[in-house]
């Protein structure tokens, strides 16, 4: 009966138009009476007309892909006047709403650089190393003699690495000084690599300059085996699925750089070239109602020994052997709760043992336990809160004589408040406490983002960041305090159709840096300011991907034993990178090339009355690579050829002077032109992406 009455009721027209916040017409919008099928699509001029059979008070809904949905009460009568509906644009970028947003641990809210594993390892010259690849992005200094990250005038200690939200205490293999060491973790273990060069969220602490966050892979879809053959080692791994929800994997590798270093005429006088055993293992369980439990384990033992020229002995060789044992165990549970809410629990264990054997043996052993909780939940309206806490227990023994214990903890909270339609404010607060450092420290932070248009965004960030002095100093002088830096950042970003342009200006004010000239104290200070420009074109159609970066840096500091304020040895004013990668689809070949340029860096010369007054020559570095990809049945084979340092030029990174200034030893890139050929074989599922990820 009800149906019949509807069918025969008198139909009345509903007319109107839909406009956006600027008064422009919105075409293609879906306008309808809530809960019914009565409605229409707006024309290009924003107008709509449809007929409804019933009269009375009801709700008119407007939906559009690029706009926020709107609802307004209307009264339908025989002569309803035209209705104008004003709708607002969605606050997020259209092309940002991708499916790849699995990372709940937002670091700095869209200002960071997010890389795929593919980016990392198809980058020419990256040698399949995460941090080496990151060095081609803005804000990172070119410090060829180190494998670590030096960001915006900060030292390498000021950068921290996290895997699945848990801190990694020793992300690089320990080795002989002045030879760049690789990062421990293969990029193919991760599906999200996020790098923030400042202004990061309150959830991250203990780092003055930058955060590198790695997210381990989700559950695989098929069992598979992978074998890698490199000139300096072999690696084999297997992933096995147990039912729909559980999977486990192991990956074992052995490398010995001896034969390869002889081939490329590595200049270091190795008595025992780097030799490594590495094992990775993981377990994953997908929970029935969403969420995942993961365990990741890593163990490594490495040895290297060389005769290094001793600057205080007229360059005569001095023997040094370095032994490193490292293990990591990371357990995490992540689970979505209700809408827009999620929780996280993580437990991380880091173990590291370094042994240095020269005339006598010294060493250090560090074990760290970390327990971390975090959650996110919606508050009033569309605002949300992120909060969490973590606790650490650290034990460090130096040369088996002295041990330091540190119990530290932190708590944080951050609000996300949408404001004025297109802006987002994120005030946050972090509290750090350590039993070794005098007192606790409170760090307020604030980020503001304003969406200028669908493609343009402006953001500002300000925050206080603190970091404990290195345990070596804390062991000697337990009451020195936190070092700190204030970040001020302004960022403009334009992104549309595969183009990304990022311009960022910043200033960092350092305070309470550790000084070692007299007694250990927090008497150091410094500033760093600069501008960075990053342009990337990644349209994908032609298979061409290229980026250009320019970083300008002005920095000065007093810290450690600096007698006056000076530009530190790891900084240079101008850095430029140009990277291009082209995939030639018909023949399945990937080619890439990169060029890096940096102005000279300061080095300490005791003969120069001006402290750090000398500069090295400019840095030039060219790399090319090519990869051939083939598939037979379910076996996928990739053959890679790369030439690093095509120019073959000698590159001096700095000098080590004898104490009396009478002799110096150059710190150089230890090889000329270097060729590398490798093969990767994958059996089982199509692991082409991961294979690409391992390209040197």
């Amino acid at each position, binding site marked *: 009966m*009800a*149906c019949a009455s509807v069918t025969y009721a008198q139909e009345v027209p509903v007319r109107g138009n839909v406009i956006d916040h600027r008064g422009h017409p919105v*075409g*293609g*919008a*879906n306008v*309808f009476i809530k*809960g*019914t*099928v*009565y*409605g*229409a*699509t707006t024309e*290009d001029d924003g107008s709509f007309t449809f007929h409804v059979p019933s009269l009375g008070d009801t709700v008119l809904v407007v*939906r559009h*892909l*690029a706009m926020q949905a709107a609802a307004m009460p209307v009264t339908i009568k025989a002569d309803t006047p035209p209705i104008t509906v004003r709708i607002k644009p969605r606050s997020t970028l*259209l*092309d940002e*709403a*991708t*499916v790849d947003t699995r990372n709940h641990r937002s670091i700095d809210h869209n200002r960071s650089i997010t890389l*795929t594993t*593919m980016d990392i390892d198809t980058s020419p010259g990256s040698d399949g190393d995460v941090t080496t690849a990151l060095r081609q992005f803005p804000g990172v200094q070119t410090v060829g003699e180190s494998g670590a990250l030096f960001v915006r005038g900060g030292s390498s200690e000021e950068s921290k690495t996290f895997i699945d939200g848990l801190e990694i205490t020793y992300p690089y293999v320990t080795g002989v000084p002045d030879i760049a060491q690789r990062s421990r973790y293969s990029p193919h273990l991760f599906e999200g690599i996020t790098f923030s060069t400042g202004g990061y969220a309150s959830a991250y602490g203990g780092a003055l300059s930058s955060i590198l966050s790695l997210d381990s892979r989700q559950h695989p*879809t*098929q069992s598979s085996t992978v074998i890698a053959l490199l000139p300096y080692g072999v690696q084999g791994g297997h992933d096995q699925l147990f039912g729909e929800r559980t999977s486990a994997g192991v990956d074992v590798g052995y490398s010995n750089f001896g034969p390869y270093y002889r081939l490329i005429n590595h200049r270091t006088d190795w008595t025992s070239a780097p030799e490594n055993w590495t094992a990775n293992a993981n377990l994953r369980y997908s929970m029935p109602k969403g969420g995942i439990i993961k365990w990741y384990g890593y163990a490594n033992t490495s040895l290297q020994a060389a005769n290094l020229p001793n600057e205080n002995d007229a360059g005569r060789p001095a023997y040094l052997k370095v032994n490193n044992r490292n293990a990591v165990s990371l357990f995490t549970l992540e689970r979505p709760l209700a809408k827009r809410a999620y929780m996280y629990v993580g437990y991380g264990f880091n173990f590291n043992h370094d042994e240095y054997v020269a005339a006598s043996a010294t060493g250090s052993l560090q074990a760290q336990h970390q327990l971390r909780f975090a959650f996110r939940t919606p508050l009033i309206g569309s605002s949300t809160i992120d909060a969490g806490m973590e606790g650490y227990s650290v034990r460090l023994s130096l040369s088996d004589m002295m041990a330091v214990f540190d119990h530290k903890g932190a708590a944080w909270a951050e609000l996300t408040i949408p404001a004025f339609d297109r802006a987002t404010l994120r005030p946050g607060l972090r509290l750090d406490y350590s039993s070794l450092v005098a007192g606790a420290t409170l760090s307020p932070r604030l980020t503001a983002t304003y969406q200028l248009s669908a493609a343009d965004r402006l953001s500002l960030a300000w925050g206080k960041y603190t970091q404990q002095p290195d345990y070596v100093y804390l062991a000697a002088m337990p009451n020195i305090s936190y070092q700190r830096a204030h970040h001020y950042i302004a960022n403009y970003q334009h992104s*549309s*159709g*595969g183009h990304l342009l990022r311009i960022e200006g910043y200033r960092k004010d350092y305070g309470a840096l550790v000084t070692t000239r007299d007694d250990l104290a927090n008497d150091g200070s410094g500033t760093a300011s600069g501008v960075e420009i990053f342009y990337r074109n*990644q*349209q*994908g*159609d032609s*298979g061409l*991907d290229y980026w250009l970066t320019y970083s300008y840096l002005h920095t000065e500091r007093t810290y450690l034993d600096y007698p006056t304020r000076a530009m530190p040895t790891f900084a240079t004013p101008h850095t430029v990178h140009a990277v291009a990668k082209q*995939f030639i*689809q*018909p*023949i*399945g070949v990937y080619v890439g090339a990169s060029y890096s340029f940096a102005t000279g860096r300061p080095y300490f010369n005791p003969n120069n009355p001006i402290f750090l007054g000398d500069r090295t020559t400019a840095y030039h570095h060219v790399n090319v690579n090519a990869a051939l*990809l*083939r*598939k037979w*049945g379910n076996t996928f084979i990739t053959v890679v050829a790369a030439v690093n340092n095509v120019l073959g030029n000698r590159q001096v990174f700095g000098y080590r002077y004898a104490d009396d200034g009478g002799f110096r030893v150059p710190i150089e890139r230890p090889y000329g032109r270097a060729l590398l050929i490798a093969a990767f074989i994958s059996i089982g*599922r*199509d*692991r*082409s*992406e*991961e294979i*690409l990820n391992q390209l040197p």
Partner: protein
Amino acid sequence: MNYLLLLCISLAVLMGAARAQSLEELLTPKIAVLDTTKGMSGLQQLANDFERIALAHPKNWHANYYTAYTYTCLAFAAPKDQIDARCDRAQEYLDVAMAIRPDDVENRILAAYLLSARINVNPMTRGASMGRESKVHLTTALEQAPDNPRALYVRGMGIFYTPAVFGGGKKKAKPFLERAREIFDASTDFIPLDPHWGRRETAALLATYK
């Protein structure tokens, strides 16, 4: 008492039937137009029509399925930077359709088709991972219904656009597309509301072999 109950039940059944019929009447002409609609604005209008029906009938599989399908078609027609927004909208309704009929093989096929649209945004970075995901959907679908022509078409299309060096190419795609056409040609008595797209797309790909 019993009579009253019976009356209530039959009335409810009748009303339900009346409502279902009116829904069928709403959907049938739209589905008929879908086969011949081209261009963004026409598809957007259809997508909106289906969306209104789906929102008013959240428990109806067809309404939700067709909204998802039409948005997927829009994604294929859209410029690269607008593909993901359309796919997200399609996924929204596909999720609802999947919840209504968890075992319907057509859901799986559409999920795979939708992922193909997403891959178009950047085949280089998305091809491998999303292609794998898409393949899982299709393999399951073809195990369940080896003669579903849409599953065969989507698989054929995937192979067609995969470079030969990665195990794809026109040659390897041909058997799938030809089998799909055979089945399309053989099936004349389809149920009006049920999915029957793919014939035109299969023919278009096969036309490139001449």
